[in-house]
């Protein structure tokens, strides 16, 4: 079976026979929408004078003088994450392998990667992986070592199947997060264990999925960079990695939890936080070597977080859940957004005033403490 799969794969790799459909969301420009700021928005970033949110139907909105305005967007896929690198450079990741780039502070975006191109990156990569493993099996010194590689080859079969299906139906793989360490070096985390890296500002991409220990290809949900240049990566089933060399190599961290992490952050003290399914939050003071659990008063999924100006940590999640955690005591206060919708991202506009992205678009919230002031 393995051989058959490989054979198909090879033939397909030579002739990429998938073609774009009549209407293909990858290439269809985002519809201009009166209610753009009320679209399902998932990605949010703020910095360098910009606030940018992105989401369903390729919708990108930017905040200009307190008003949300829709930016032109060359795609209609669901956009998942925004990274503002500097005042000119913005990246946005999306479904079906779409990656957008702006060189003019979010006024215009161009598509620098799509799922068809991604497929063409991943097919040779998996081919190389297979060859490497087969060689390793052949060169194995002990039967135990050989069976170890055979196991890995088998696992690779699942990823192969995924690529095969994509060859048939078109690109299905969502890019889940994009994070640039500087103007040139960036990493993209994607579903089914795909990890990409660039050193030339997104001109070319290298598949580095094999540099993390994720043989079953679990989803990679979020990348977090700390001021010292450490890069963290969290994902499904308690996946947690750290890179100390700008994403070139990765070490697996001792995850304190086997459920999924949806996000992480680094607080003002340099501590690394990871959070996810059912209100689980963990904090590490030693760059992810050891963790302790933070007690939160919610069992809803926590999707995204942000460090406020006063150093406290704010996490948001499903059903409008807002968790505000004191930096020192780690005591958590629970609030609920009146919309009750899943919140997917949060930033602080000014002292205690928050902006969210959610299934129902942009939402605002003022922390009660800030209200009193």
């Amino acid at each position, binding site marked *: 079976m393995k051989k058959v799969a490989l054979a198909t794969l090879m033939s397909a790799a030579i002739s990429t026979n998938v073609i774009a459909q009549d209407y293909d969301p990858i290439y269809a420009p985002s519809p201009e929408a009166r209610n753009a700021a009320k679209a399902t928005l*998932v990605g949010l970033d703020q910095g360098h004078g910009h606030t940018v949110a992105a989401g*369903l139907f390729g919708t990108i909105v930017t905040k200009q003088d307190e008003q949300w305005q829709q930016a032109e967007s060359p795609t209609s896929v669901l956009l998942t994450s925004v990274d503002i690198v500097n005042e000119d450079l913005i990246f946005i990741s999306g479904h079906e392998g779409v990656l957008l780039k702006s060189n003019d502070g979010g006024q215009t975006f161009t598509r620098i990667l799509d799922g068809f191109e991604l497929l063409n990156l991943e097919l040779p990569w998996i081919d190389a992986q297979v060859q490497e493993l087969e060689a390793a099996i052949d060169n194995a010194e002990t039967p135990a070592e050989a069976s170890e590689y055979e196991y890995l080859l088998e696992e690779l079969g699942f990823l192969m199947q995924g690529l095969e299906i994509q060859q048939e139906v*078109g690109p299905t793989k969502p890019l889940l997060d994009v994070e640039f360490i500087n103007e040139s070096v960036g990493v993209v985390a994607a579903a089914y264990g795909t990890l990409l890296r660039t050193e030339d500002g997104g001109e070319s991409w290298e598949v580095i999925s094999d540099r993390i220990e994720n043989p079953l290809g679990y989803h990679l949900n979020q990348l977090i960079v700390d001021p010292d240049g450490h890069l963290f990566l969290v994902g499904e089933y308690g996946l947690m990695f750290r890179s100390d060399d700008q994403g070139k190599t990765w070490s697996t961290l001792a995850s304190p939890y086997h*459920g999924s992490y949806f996000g992480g952050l680094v607080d003002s003290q340099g501590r690394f936080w990871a959070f996810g*399914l059912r209100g689980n939050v963990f904090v590490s003071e030693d760059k992810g070597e050891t963790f302790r659990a933070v007690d939160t008063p919610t069992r809803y999924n926590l999707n995204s977080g942000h460090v406020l100006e006063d150093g406290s940590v704010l996490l948001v999640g499903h059903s409008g859940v807002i968790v505000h955690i004191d930096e020192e005591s780690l005591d958590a206060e629970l609030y609920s957004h009146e919309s009750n919708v*899943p919140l997917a991202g949060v930033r602080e506009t000014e002292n205690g005033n928050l902006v969210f992205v959610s299934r129902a678009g942009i939402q605002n919230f003022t922390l009660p403490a800030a209200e009193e002031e």
Partner: protein
Amino acid sequence: MQETTNIADVKPPMLERVLFGACKTWLFIFIALTGFLLYHAAQVRPDASFQKMIPTNHEFVQNYFKYEEDLSSLGNAIRVVVETKEGTIFDAEYQEVLRRVTDELNYVSGVNRSGIRSIWTPNVRWSEVTEDGFVGGPVIPDTYNGDEDSIQQLRQNILRSGEVGNLVANNFQSALIYVPLNEVDPETGERLDYHQFGQNLEEQIRDKFGSETISIKIVGFAKVVADLIDGAMQVGIFFLLAMLITFGMLYLYSRCLRGSFMVLLCSVIAVIWQLGIIKLIGSGINPYSMLVPFLVFAIGVSHGVQIINALVTNRTDGHSKEMSSRLAFRSLYAAGLTALASDAIGFTTLMVIDIAVIKELAIAASIGVAVIVLTNLGLLPVLAKYLGVSESGIKHLQKTRRESHPLLTFFGKFTQPSYAKGAVLVAAIMAVVGVWQAQNLKIGDLDTGAPELRADSRYNLDNAFLVDNYSASTDIFVVMAETPPGECIDWQNMVLMDRFQWHMENVPGVQTTRSITYVSKLGMAGINEGNLKWYSINRDDFVINASISQAPSGLINQECTMAPLILYLNDHKADTLNRVVDEVNAFADEYETDNIEFLLASGNSGIEAATNKVIEAAQMKMLIWVYGVVIALCLITFRSIRTVICIILPLMFTTVMSQALMAWLGIGVKVATLPVIALGVGIGVDYGIYIYSKMREALKENMSLTESYAYALSKTGKAVGFTGLTLAIGVATWIWSPIKFQADMGLLLTFMFIWNMLGALILIPALARLFKVGPKGEDGKPVM
């Protein structure tokens, strides 16, 4: 009133000989027929068939019919809200009531039991993603026993179920039960009797469970229909009221009890015949055509009164009972036939509107008018032959003959140039203002809630409660995405539907949308631990299939050839509906492929959009027809363009003013109000015909215009006034109908009848003066 002296000597016309030659036979036939038709008329039941109220041949409705069955699970359901007036729903006592109401609804016949949803039905579940996968269960905990713990558990389950805003009010002070209905009983095969169903709901649910602390609210199409039929039944009371008032007026007018009674009797017989005949021809009576008996009655009375008038005059002149009757018939049958023919033809023009209820109304009205010819021109004189008129009537006429009514003197002044110019100027100014105001006239229904019922009706209050407390709109517009068999959820079709919905969500007036794509996106997020980053349609059809495994029924049809795309609208104003239709078409033009078509339209608002389109198109057509017919009729009768203008301009003035009134009162042009204009014009022209024909008699005798008009007034002025008032009263009682559109019809018709009467009495002489109608023209002939 009628000229009778010189026709007593002419040879009786054939019709008269036939009628009076065998009076007893005719009387017997009339009685037998009345008995027979009464039997059938008694079986007439108001029917409010949905299909009859919509333009069944319109493209939208045809599309809807094509998928009617597939859409039924979306459509015909009621929502029963159980509200607590104290505290919240998280209370054992309240939950017990909610459980009992849910159970009881199972026993209301017509309910599709398997589809009932409430937090007390096992099909309403909560689910949650945990580290170990999905967990879930029914919202009511298996261990529920009403204690504090299980109430707490229930609260948590409700929050996790995603039913807040659907089955549970946003403020937690009420919960609702969603009750789908079987249009046809699966066991007996009988159609749902909406009226009975509505009564059952009232008795088994509202009366039984409503209390000081619990309020029951019921919303849904079936309830609207039931309330409509209920309201329509009250119309019987209005009919009695109209009869009483008319009788009083008849008596005041004639002072002849016998004569008044005969007119009333014959007019009621006309109504019985009309109802009996429509039952026999298999046509029904609907809340719209219910107006017809009132009109038939009023028109019958107005013609009957002329017969009685002539009878009394003839008796006063010393003729025998039989001769008086014969002469009354002889002098009136031609004029009566002409006037009734014009009414009937006026009604027939309504047939150009392709909506069954309006056609039924046209047929019923035409039958009614035809029947009046028999009852009030046939039966009435025969009856009078035997019964005669009372002495008091004769005396009254003798007395009033000699004196002119002050009002008639007043109207007589409008032949004077200053009065004429003044009247025409005032009318012209009013017409200009009217035309300007009529610009605001809207097509369709303008009120929120069920437009058939009054804004403050219990139904609409219930409906407003639902809209306020739940995330639901009751104005639903459905677009049907049609695909080849089995391809309704293909990725390519799904992404287009998804884009379509987003396109529509950005159209002003569209609140939100739902369809299988929404479920698929939620399902995708669900499969991926609720992660919003997956809230998207997947390219892989297998994944799409998995994502919709939990989809509620009705979002795709059995053959997978159609997926309803449901748009919830802010309101059903014509502007909103037009905008929605335009935007659907714009999207379809740009994105439709060989594999997907976006078909308009279903849902109450979709059907209303079709109705509006038909009404809008029919409005001008109907006006042209009705005026065309009336103008032709006048031309044939009078052979003078000047005369036609004198008669038609006042009618047009009334039409403009009633449109202005509609705009001012916020009444839209709709199924109920469109026929009113035709009825108003068709009946209104009678006044002009009566007055002008008498004027011409005098003009031919070379009398001056003022004299001629005074002559016409003395001959027909009172009759015209009386007819206007009888007609107005006949329909005015409708203003109190609990059915909004009946009230609108009543109001507009009352306005039109009175306005037409005044227009005829004031503007005809004034216009005649301005057009220099008079005894001598340049050629020495009278100008008419």
